[in-house]
């Protein structure tokens, strides 16, 4: 469904993605893990066309992407951002936030579509005419997911979708995302700094450092701690919590 080959990205002089390649099958869920500055979000931003200076091949549903994305691309590929406090317009009602993509794509029938999208993310109709500030963090992220779903996309790009949420709310949103993938046959690329979140959500995982994929692993291999690269081993050990001896073994990777 998604094929990326030798993707290179520059921000001015800065070479931020170096030969990134991976495939995601239809209905698959691919995870990108790394620390800040590793380039994991840049991969998603390049796919959606938010980055100009790139080289390589990006193929979505057998179509090669050029420098510009057409409107049909965004029907198929939608993105959910990290911070539901920043990604929803504070002075638009939920109804307006959700109908905007419908209007942009001239799909019509926005009433029914809004109601359906809200239902898909487990919010009832009473939310429709509220403003984002009247919602909790978890409810807002549901609205952001509904906004992505309303165009009935095939692919969702998830950029740290739960890292701004409390763990109990994170569990609800992750369950929702799993159910949507199952029920709607969606394909995911999920970016997170949290190894456990990615291990839980994804079948196939890439660990990134300084713009490169340093290691690929399946969820099973990750569960068993089967990692070869010292950077991914360090990340794995760090996920286990505070242990003085382990911390002293850390090396800097910059």
């Amino acid at each position: 469904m998604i094929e990326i080959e030798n993707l290179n990205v520059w921000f001015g002089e800065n070479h931020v993605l170096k030969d990134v390649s991976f495939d995601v099958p239809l209905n698959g869920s691919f995870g990108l893990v790394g620390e800040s500055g590793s380039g994991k979000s840049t991969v998603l931003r390049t796919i959606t066309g938010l980055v100009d200076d790139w080289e390589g091949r990006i193929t979505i549903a057998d179509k090669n992407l050029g420098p510009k994305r057409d409107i049909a691309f965004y029907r198929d590929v939608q993105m959910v951002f990290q911070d539901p406090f920043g990604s929803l317009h504070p002075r638009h009602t939920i109804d307006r936030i959700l109908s905007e993509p419908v209007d942009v794509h001239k799909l019509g029938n926005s009433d029914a579509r809004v109601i359906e999208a809200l239902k898909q993310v487990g919010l009832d109709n009473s939310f429709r005419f509220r403003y984002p500030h009247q919602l909790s963090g978890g409810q807002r992220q549901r609205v952001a997911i509904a906004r992505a779903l309303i165009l009935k996309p095939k692919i969702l790009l998830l950029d740290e979708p739960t890292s701004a949420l409390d763990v109990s709310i994170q569990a609800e949103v992750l369950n929702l995302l799993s159910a949507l993938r199952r029920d709607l046959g969606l394909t995911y690329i999920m970016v997170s700094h949290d190894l456990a979140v990615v291990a839980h959500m994804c079948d196939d995982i890439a660990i990134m450092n300084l713009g490169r994929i340093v290691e690929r692993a399946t969820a099973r291999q990750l569960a068993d701690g089967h990692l070869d690269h010292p950077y991914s081993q360090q990340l794995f050990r760090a996920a286990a919590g505070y242990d003085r001896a382990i911390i002293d073994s850390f090396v800097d990777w910059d």
Partner: protein
Amino acid sequence: MTQDLILSVRNLHVGFNTAKGAIEAVRGVSFDLGRERLGIVGESGSGKSQTGRAILGLTAANGHIRADRLQFHDTDLRNLSPRDWRKVRGARISMIMQDPKYSLNPVMTVGDQIIEAYREHFKVNNREAKRRAIEMLESVKIRDPELVFKSYPHEVSGGMGQRVMIAMMLIPEPELIIADEPTSALDVTVQLQVMAILDDLVRERGMALIFISHDLHLVSSFCDRVLVMYQGRVVEEIAASNLDQAQHPYTRGLLNCLPKMDGNHADLPVLARDAAWETQDLT
């Protein structure tokens, strides 16, 4: 333990008058603190930060504090004058905030800020203060302290910024440090390294530490004792090493809903909240 008692809190309430009516953020929190590392864990809105702020008299102007006891050594923290507060804050109790991006002064060099913190409490000349500041930057494992001393906050990384904060807060040698989500804005490895630095310094100097965080696992691997807060109350107090024997359904729910690296993609257990947790008698 009793002779080492640093802080004693009984039945602490923190309330706010807002446009939408009165809110009780903290409802009857009690604990004693010796020379130890105490974790306060809870989700957003649980009152964990407001508990920390009340101890330092940093509750916002529309808030009010009520407590049967709020005793720091021989000082009653309940009715201090602003003048008396200045003798406690920074010098004897200090706070490390979440994000160095916002808690450092952006138009002042790192060195000047540390010196300012030091000279507020110690009558020393500039050269001596600078020497102490560089020493302090070294002790938080900054490799090139002279360079960082001259840098502005935007020129240092997040992990470095938080080390600078720790240096600044520890330089007057307070007896109690309140760290409010000090590492949540950092990458995991950097987070652990910063915690290790804090841990070493707190131990060496025999300080007490209150570590406030939303991360139950991290806190329990770091602290000696953990208070779990829910809706303004402590629902469970537990020795950190016994976390897996937590009794309260809220604590258990929090632990269960974390995704685990076990290769299992089944739905996560969702925390079912019980209204009784807000009122039940916990003694």
